[in-house]
C-alpha cells in the first residue's frame, strides 16, 4: 500500500504562486510604510501575472480529458466552471456585505441626500448601457467560437474590452472628477464614503476583468481557441457577466434613490 | 462582607445555579458513558474483534428523535426559567422610571450626571432601595459599563444611548455600601484603570448629601 507516485511528472511546479504572494505582500507593506516598496510590489505582481498567463497559454496545467470520477450531482459542470461559480459566491457575499452596510448606515442616518442631488443620472445610465452591451459582446464572442468562428470571437472580445474600458474612462475620467469639483468626495461624509467605496471596488473588479479579457484577446490572436477548446472564454465571460450584474444593483441603489 | 447582594444578582445566581446544575447532570451522563465505554470495551490481549452482527452505520431514527426531544425539553425549561426567574435590566418598568443617572464613559473614566445637573467623576452616590435608570453613552470609543456585584452590564457606545434599570439594595442609618464598576470593553491603554465605584446610602442621608453639593454644572449628556 504505497502512494509513491512520481509527483514530478504529474504535479507541475510553478514559481508564479510565491511570486504573486510576495508581490502582494510587498505592495501592502509599501502602502503603509514606504511607497517605493509598493511600486516594487506592483512590478513583482506584474511578473507573477505574466507567469500565470504564460502557463495558461502553454496549457501547462490543463486537465486530462477522460476521467473516471464520481460526478453526481453536478455532472454538467466541468472543474474550472465549478471553481468560477464557487468564486462568484464569495464575490456575491463581499458585495452583499458592503451593500448591507450601505443600507444600514443610510437607514440609520437622519439626513441623506437624494440621488439627484449628488449623482449624474445620465452618466450613470450611459455607463449601465455600456456595460450591458459589453456583456452582450462577450456572449456573442462565446457563441462565435462555439461555432468555430475565430473572427467573431476576436470582434466580440475586442468590443467587450473597448466597452469595458469606456466604462472606466467615463467613470474615472469624467464622472468622478466632476463630483470632486462639486465637493462630493470620498471623505465628505457617509454618502460620499459609501458611493466611492462600493463603486470603487466595482471599478477594480472591472479592471481585473479587463486584464482577463486582454489575456483572452492575446490567446485568440495566437490561435489558442477552437470550437471545442475554449473554456477560458466561457469562464471569464461568467465573471464578466457577474461584474455587470453587480452594477445592476449599484446603479439603482446610488443613482435612482 | 455584610454588604447586601443586590436583587438582580441574587436572581442571576438562582438562574446560574439552576443552569449549572443541569449542566453538571449532562456532563455526568456524557463523561460517565465515555468512561464506562473505555473500561468495558478496552482492547484485551489477543483480541481482534469485528462486529458484523451489529447494525453498523445504520441510521437510528428512533434514538435520534428521543435524544432531540429530551434536549429540547431541557432547553425550553431553562428558557422559561430564565424569563420567569430573572427580571431583565433592559426591560422598561411600568410606572415610574426611577432616578435617572446619565453615565458618560470616556477615555479613561466615568462621568455621572444627576437630574439636578450635578456631575461626579468615577463615583456615583445613590439612595438605597431605589429604582435607578442608567442612561449610558460614550464620548469616544466603546466602553462597557459593568456593575459587578449587580451582575448587569451594558455597552457605552458613542452616538447611542443604552438604558438599564437596577434597584439599589436597602441602606439604613449610617450604612454605606460600596459596589464596583469596571469597564469591560478594551478601550485603549487606560482600560485597566477605568474603575469606578457606586456608593449606596440611606435615602435621608442621600438627600442631605445632595443638598450640600454646590456644583450645579448642567449635565451635558443629553437626555
Amino acid at each position, binding site marked *: 500500500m504505497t*502512494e509513491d507516485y512520481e509527483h514530478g511528472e504529474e*504535479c507541475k511546479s510553478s514559481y508564479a504562486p510565491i511570486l504573486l504572494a510576495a508581490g502582494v505582500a510587498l505592495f501592502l507593506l509599501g502602502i*503603509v510604510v514606504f511607497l517605493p516598496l509598493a511600486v516594487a510590489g506592483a512590478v513583482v505582481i506584474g511578473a507573477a501575472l505574466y507567469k500565470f498567463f504564460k502557463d495558461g497559454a502553454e496549457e501547462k496545467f490543463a486537465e486530462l480529458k477522460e476521467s473516471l*470520477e464520481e460526478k453526481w450531482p453536478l455532472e454538467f459542470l466541468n472543474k474550472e466552471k465549478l*471553481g468560477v461559480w464557487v468564486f462568484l459566491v464569495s464575490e456575491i457575499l463581499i458585495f452583499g456585505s458592503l451593500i448591507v*452596510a450601505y443600507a444600514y448606515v443610510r437607514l440609520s442616518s437622519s439626513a441623506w441626500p437624494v440621488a439627484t442631488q449628488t449623482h449624474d443620472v445620465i452618466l450613470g445610465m450611459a455607463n449601465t448601457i455600456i456595460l450591458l452591451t459589453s456583456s452582450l459582446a462577450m456572449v456573442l464572442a462565446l457563441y462565435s467560437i462555439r461555432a468555430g468562428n475565430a473572427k467573431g470571437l476576436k470582434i466580440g472580445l475586442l468590443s467587450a474590452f473597448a466597452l469595458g474600458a469606456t466604462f472606466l474612462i467615463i467613470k474615472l475620467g469624467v464622472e468622478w472628477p466632476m463630483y470632486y469639483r462639486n465637493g462630493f468626495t470620498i471623505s465628505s461624509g457617509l454618502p460620499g464614503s459609501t458611493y466611492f*467605496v462600493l463603486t470603487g471596488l466595482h471599478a477594480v473588479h472591472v479592471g481585473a476583468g479587463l486584464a482577463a479579457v486582454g489575456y483572452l484577446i492575446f490567446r485568440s490572436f495566437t490561435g489558442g481557441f477552437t470550437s471545442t477548446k475554449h473554456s477560458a472564454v466561457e469562464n471569464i465571460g461568467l465573471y464578466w457577466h457577474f461584474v455587470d450584474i453587480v452594477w445592476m444593483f449599484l446603479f439603482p441603489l446610488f443613482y435612482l434613490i | 462582607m455584610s454588604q447586601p447582594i443586590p436583587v438582580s444578582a441574587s436572581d442571576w445566581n438562582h438562574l446560574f445555579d439552576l443552569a449549572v446544575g443541569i449542566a453538571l447532570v*449532562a456532563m455526568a451522563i456524557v463523561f460517565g458513558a465515555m468512561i464506562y465505554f473505555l473500561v468495558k*470495551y478496552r482492547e484485551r490481549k489477543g483480541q481482534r474483534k469485528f462486529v458484523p452482527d451489529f447494525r453498523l452505520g445504520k*441510521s437510528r431514527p428512533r434514538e435520534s428523535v428521543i435524544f432531540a426531544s429530551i434536549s429540547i425539553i431541557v432547553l425550553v425549561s431553562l428558557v422559561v426559567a430564565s424569563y420567569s426567574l430573572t427580571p431583565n435590566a433592559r426591560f422598561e418598568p411600568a410606572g415610574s422610571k426611577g432616578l435617572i443617572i446619565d453615565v458618560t464613559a470616556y477615555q479613561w473614566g466615568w462621568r455621572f450626571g444627576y437630574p439636578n445637573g450635578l456631575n461626579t467623576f468615577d463615583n456615583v452616590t445613590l439612595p438605597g432601595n431605589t429604582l435607578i435608570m442608567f442612561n449610558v453613552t460614550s464620548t469616544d470609543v466603546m466602553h462597557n459599563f459593568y456593575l459587578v456585584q449587580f451582575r448587569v452590564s451594558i455597552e457605552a457606545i458613542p452616538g447611542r444611548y443604552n438604558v438599564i434599570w437596577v434597584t439599589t439594595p436597602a441602606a439604613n442609618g449610617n450604612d454605606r455600601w460600596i459596589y464596583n464598576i469596571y469597564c469591560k470593553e478594551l478601550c485603549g491603554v487606560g482600560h485597566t484603570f477605568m474603575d469606578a465605584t457606586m456608593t449606596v446610602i440611606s435615602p435621608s442621608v442621600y438627600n442631605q448629601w445632595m443638598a450640600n453639593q454646590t456644583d450645579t454644572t448642567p449635565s451635558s449628556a443629553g437626555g
Partner: protein
Amino acid sequence: MDGQPNGYNPIFGRRLKTIVFSIKEWLSTTNHKQVGILYIVTAIFFMAVAGSFGEMMRTQLAVPNNNFLTPFTYDQTVTLHGLLMILWVLTPLGIGIANYIVPLQIGAKDLAFPRMNALSYWTYLFSGILLVSSVFMPGGGPNTGWTLYAPLNTIQFTSQAGMTLAVLALLLFSLSVTMGSINFLTTIVRNRAKGVTWKRLPIFTWSILFTMSLALFAFPPLAAGLLLLSSDRFLGTVFFSSTQGGGILWDELFWFFGHPEVYIVVFPALGVIAEVFQTFAKRPVFSRTAFLVEFSAVTFLSVGVWMHHMFTTGVNYSVLQTFSFTTLAISIPFEGVVLGLVLTLYKGTIKLNTPMLYCLAAIFTVTLGGITGVLQAFPVLDYAFNGTYWIVGHFHYVMAGTTLFALVAGLYYWWPKITKRKYNEKWGVITFIVSFAGFNILYFPYFFMLDMPRRISTYSVSSGLATLNLTATIGAYIFGPAAAIAILNLILSLRKPPSQTSNPWEGRELEWTGDYSGSLATGNPTATAVTVAEPPDKSRSSRWYWCMTGSCKPNATAVDPTNQSDILRNSAGVES
C-alpha cells in the same frame, strides 16, 4: 516503488537529495502533500510565537500590580496572541492536514487547482509575516484586541502604522482562505475517484466540506469590514468614525464572520476525532447518517447565531431573543455530534494510545466548553459573562482544548502516513498527561473570575483575584512547555529510519488502504489516483462496513458478512 535505489525517500518516491534539501522544489511546489507540510510547519511556527505571547501575558498577570509588561505592550500582546492563534495557527493547521489527507481520502491526484493551492499557502505565510512585523513598526502594532472594535480601530484612536499593517495582513489572509475554500469545495465535489460516493465519503472529508462551505460564507464579510476599515484609515471615509452606528456596524460585520469562524476552527477537529475513534475503537462512527445530518445542521445554523456576541450592545431586545433562540437551537445538533462521537466507543475494541488520549481530552473540553456556551446563550446570564474571564475560559476550552488537542491527535495519528515513522509512544502519553493537567490548571480557574474584565493588564490586591491568577499562571508554565515537547516528540521521530509498515493502526479509510502505486505513470488515461474496489453489496452506505470485512482491497474476494472465518481471512490482508 520496486527495486528501490539508494537514497530513495519513501515519502515522495524520489531521491532524498533531490527532494528534502531542494529549496527550489519547495518554493515552486504545487503538490498537495508538500503544500500540506508547509502549512503544518508554518502553523507550528506561529503557534510558538503566539504561545510565547500567551506565556508573557500570564507572567504579567501572575501577581497584582505587576509591571513586567506596560499596558500598551500588554494590549499588543493580547491582540497578536488572539489573531495569530485563531487565524494563523488553528485554521491553517486544519487546512494543512486537510491538504495532505483529503485528496488521499477521496482518491484524487491533487486538489482541483494546484497552483491556487500553493498561492493560498504563500499568501498565508506572507500575511503572517506582515502581521508579526507590525509590532516592530514605529508606534507599535495593533492594540485593540483581536476583535478590532470600532471606533477604537480608526486612525483617530489607534494611529500607529502597525495597526494599518495588521488590517492589511488580515485582508490578505482572508483572500488566502477564500481561495482555499474554492479549491477544496471544487475538489471534494469533482475530484472523487469512482467508488467514492457521497455516502462513502470519509467523515474527515465531510468535516472539511462543511468547514470550507462556512469559510466561503464567513470570510467575505470580514474582508468587507476590513476594506471599509482600510478606506477609513487610508482615504478618510467615515464608516467607523461615524456616530451614526459606526461601532455597531463593525460589530455586525465582524461577528457575522466571527461566529462561523469559530466553527471553521473546530470542524476539522471534530472530523479528526471521528477518524481516530473509528480506527482505535475498530468500529464505524455511531449512526453515521444522523451524525452527518446533525453536522450539517450545525453548519447551516452557525450563520444565524452571530449576535450572541452582541448581547450587551443595547440593540433591540427582541433581536437578542431571536439570537438566543438560534444559539440554543444550534446546541442540540452540536450535542448530537459530540454524543455520536462518544457512542462510537460503544461495543468497540478500544486501544488507548496517544492520538486516542488527545481525542478523549478533546471530547472532555468540548463538552465543558460547549455547555458553558449554552449558559452564555441566555442574555441575562451573558450580561455578567460577556467581557470577563468566563468567556476567556469558554473559548480556550473549545479552541485551545478541543481544536488544539484534536489537531495534535491528527498529527500523531497520520504521522506514520506522512513520514513513515513512529513517534515515541511513551513520551507521547507522558506529555499528554502533563499538558492536559496544565491545560486545566490554566483555564478552569477562569470560570471563577467573573469579576475580572478581559484584556486588563493588571489588577489590584483588593480585587481578590491574586490566587486564581497565580494558579492559572502556574498552569500556563506547565501547559506551554508540555505542548512544545509534544511537538518535539514528532520532530525527533524523523531521526529514525523510515519503517516499512504503511498502516500500523489498521486504518480503514482510503488514505491507509488505497492502492496508489503506479497509477499515475504517464500514459494512464485516468485522472484519478486510485482504483477503488466496488463493494459486493452496493446498498451499504458506509465504506467502513465492507472495508472491515476486507473487501476494500482491490482484489479481495467477496465475503459473507456473517462468516467470522471469512472475515478474518480477508481482513488479515488489509494492512500491508
